[in-house]
């Protein structure tokens, strides 16, 4: 058992964790340690062997793995310590985390901790999709590891559950593996491949591959005792059932934060995002513990996560220099069909800015007015042409100074 002291301990070497570590070093923090459970640092972009990364952060286009390598290289050059194959297994106290690794067990004690443990996709079982449990069922993440990381065979004909940005990613990975895509399936009345995916979708899905997007359907049974032989779908309006032969099913999206370390630490969790509750400075409920990236809510782009990591770095540096931890903050709850709002709590200093917030909906809503209330008092109402699931929407923040810091909780809801 070894014990090590550091100034900032970052859990998770993805875009949020690494960008934060880099920014901390640049802000003059002496010892920054990043741990990651994987054998290789870089996080999820390592799995995304397509372009589209880096425009925000580095002003040029990279593939996922190249983007990850660039962050790793920068971090190492600046003297960040990166420890891979290191898994956090518990909290000794609010500043000390225990880990296991091939070098044995140990504890890391830090003046501040950043949790940046990322997200996963909700697998078939958690979606309660009935049927057999054959081989051939994937999530986008497991599919990418099969195809790009390990070069393993996948199948011949697939259905993709979901019709949003990440579903397109699954589509291209299947294409690369030589798997025909029988259809995209979505429960919603429309697909959700809007900006910036629309032209890509039009060219590849509609024009070149002529892949149907089946809307308003739910997958109701998976057939095949050994290998997937097909799926049964239900049309939600009519209840009509239909069989689609295929040997592969890919479940895409439905993000769940990897919040194990956060929950082990007893942090207050937000019921909407299922990540830790944070204020505008990315402070969790535990003094000295910050959180950034898709652990906070699934899922934004790598660039957004990286930007959040840099914001967390500034706030951590301020905390290390003695900025006090807010004693009180106001949570913001969402009501269905809204899914989450971010940030999901406001500290007193968050009420002095007018920065926008972001939110997502679980369902399509046409001509929606979204309102913010404190108790019964209406603070803000904003109208949207439509709310689209799996798309992040912005909510103006000019109402923040009107919030009573000693008042009731805030609520975000669709009015009417």
């Amino acid at each position, binding site marked *: 058992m070894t014990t090590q002291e550091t100034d900032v301990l970052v859990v998770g070497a993805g875009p949020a964790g690494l960008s934060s570590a880099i920014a901390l070093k640049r802000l003059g923090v002496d010892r920054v340690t990043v741990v990651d459970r994987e054998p290789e640092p870089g996080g999820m972009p390592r799995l995304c062997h397509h372009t589209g990364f880096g425009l925000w952060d580095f002003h040029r286009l990279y593939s996922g793995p190249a983007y990850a390598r660039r962050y790793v290289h920068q971090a190492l050059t600046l003297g960040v310590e990166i420890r891979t194959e290191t898994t956090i297994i518990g909290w000794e106290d609010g500043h000390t985390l225990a880990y296991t*690794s*091939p070098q*044995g*067990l140990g504890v890391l004690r830090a003046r501040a901790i950043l949790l940046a443990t990322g997200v*996963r996709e909700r697998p078939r079982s958690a979606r309660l999709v009935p*049927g057999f449990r054959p081989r051939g069922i994937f999530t986008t993440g*497991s599919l990418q590891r099969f195809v790009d990381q*390990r070069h*393993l065979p996948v199948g011949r004909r697939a259905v993709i559950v979901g019709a949003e940005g990440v579903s397109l990613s699954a589509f291209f990975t299947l294409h690369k593996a030589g798997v025909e895509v029988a259809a995209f399936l979505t429960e919603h009345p429309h697909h959700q491949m809007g900006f910036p995916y629309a032209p890509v979708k039009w060219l590849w899905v509609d024009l070149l591959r002529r892949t149907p997007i089946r809307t308003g359907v739910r997958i109701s049974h998976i057939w095949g005792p050994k290998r997937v032989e097909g799926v049964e779908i239900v049309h939600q309006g009519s209840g009509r059932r239909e069989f689609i032969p295929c040997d592969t099913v890919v479940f895409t999206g439905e993000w*769940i934060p990897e919040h194990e370390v956060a929950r082990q630490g007893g942090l207050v969790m937000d019921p909407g995002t299922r990540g830790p509750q944070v204020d505008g400075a990315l402070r969790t409920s535990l003094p000295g513990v910050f959180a950034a990236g898709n652990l906070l809510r699934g899922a934004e782009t790598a660039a957004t996560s990286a930007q959040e990591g840099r914001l967390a770095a500034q706030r951590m540096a301020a905390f290390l220099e003695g900025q006090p931890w807010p004693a009180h903050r106001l949570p913001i709850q969402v009501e269905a069909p809204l899914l989450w709002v971010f940030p999901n709590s406001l500290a007193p200093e968050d009420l002095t800015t007018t920065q926008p917030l972001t939110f997502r909906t679980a369902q399509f809503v046409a001509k929606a007015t979204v309102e913010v209330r404190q108790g019964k008092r209406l603070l803000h109402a904003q109208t949207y042409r439509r709310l689209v699931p799996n798309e992040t929407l912005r909510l103006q923040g000019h109402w923040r100074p009107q919030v009573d810091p000693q008042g009731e909780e805030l609520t975000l809801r669709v009015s009417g």
Partner: protein
Amino acid sequence: MPTSYDIAIIGAGAVGTAIARELSRYQLRVVLLEAKADVGMGTTKANTAIWHTGFDAQPGTLEARLLRRSYPLLEAYVAQAGIPTERLGGLLVAWTEEQFRTLPSLLQRAHANGVTDVRILSAEEVYRLEPRLNHGAWGGLYVPGESLICPFTLPIAYATEALLNGVTLKLRFPVQAVHQGPEGHLLIGPQGQTVRARYLVNAAGLYSDEIDRMLGHHDFTVTPRRGELIVFDKFARSLINHIILPVPTPITKGVLISPTVYGNVLLGPTAEDLDDKTNTATSEQGLQSLLEKGQAILPALLQEEVTATYAGLRAATEHKDYQIRLHAAQRYVCVGGIRSTGVSASLGIAAYVAELLAEAGLPLRPKAHFKTFRMPNIGEAGPRPYRQDDLIAQNPDYGRIVCHCEKVTLGEILDAIHSPIPARTLDALRRRTRATQGRCQGFNCQAQVVDILAQETGQDPRFLLALEDDDPPVPRTLTHPAADEAKEDQP
């Protein structure tokens, strides 16, 4: 020429492997035949994973007797072999006045079954033990002996000890016909392979009626009774401290909520009679009814994510009791209709079957030495390798986590692939290590696990992923080179 054995056992579930282990104590040539590619693949692997005391069995039945006989034997065995268990105790909750009124008769029944440590609890006592239960409980019955057990490790442990003590295990050997002659039984397997044995034990579970008919008997018919279950995330584990049992009905023990030795929480099973012995699919209605029951018993449970759903088939018959019969003239013992208590009663059944065989003239001469085996721990109550500094110092692979959700290390995966009954399929590896069984269901590690298994066993990943059948399935014969008195077996 077929190899000749003193005794053949058909079926390597909890019951068949326990019988093989029991018989391996004696100077006998024993063969254990299994239709599937691994042991413990039928009812044994998909149930509620509870070690029953038999407190609620029908007194006077063989099931009640063998459950009672098994309990102390299993107590000693799990300690010796390192089978993951947790002695939590069961809490049977009465949700209506009518159910509450049946508690005294259940108490009496428990006493009649020799389970004397049960007691009736008031509603206050119930909520003191389980504060998160939904309101409305009238009271309960506390059964301290009801425990959790790992139904994956148990049959592998039995079969491994059997192997170490000279038993031959033939996997992927479905028995297609049984011929009887003066020499004994001639069992016809796939691809013209045969096994000759003087004595025969039928422990074929769901298929025990079909084997029984091959011997000319029509004593019972197996109706597969499907039970669907939902496994909740480990974050639900802190919600309960006991096995929460319902008041049983004649059809089923009912829907329970129980922790598992892996640190999850189970909700189930449903009970539905089918006619297809291979239908282990879950259903929309089944899962929905479980969620409703779970909501009624422990509302907080449904706030957590679901980790897995599965369905198992119990070997129910038209009779209310086990169908264990000795046909002495045929030198044949049928062990059928074990329904839902096979894991719990396994050692009692094994001891009883050995007595029946002795009665039929099989000489039971003990061996001088009996080898024991300790299984790797995959339960949360015992030490897991990733938390053991000394183990990691000896072999860093025990600190190299492959499956992050279940904290399964590379060292454990390699051990399972190279164990006496090696894991050669993804399912076999899953049941030996828990790899890919966690909350992400392989999002992170599935590809790596396939890769490791393919490399270590030299199998094509296409077979592992069932993209191609390696048809026709070739039976695989396992013996242990170090086994005493084991005669070489060449198919």
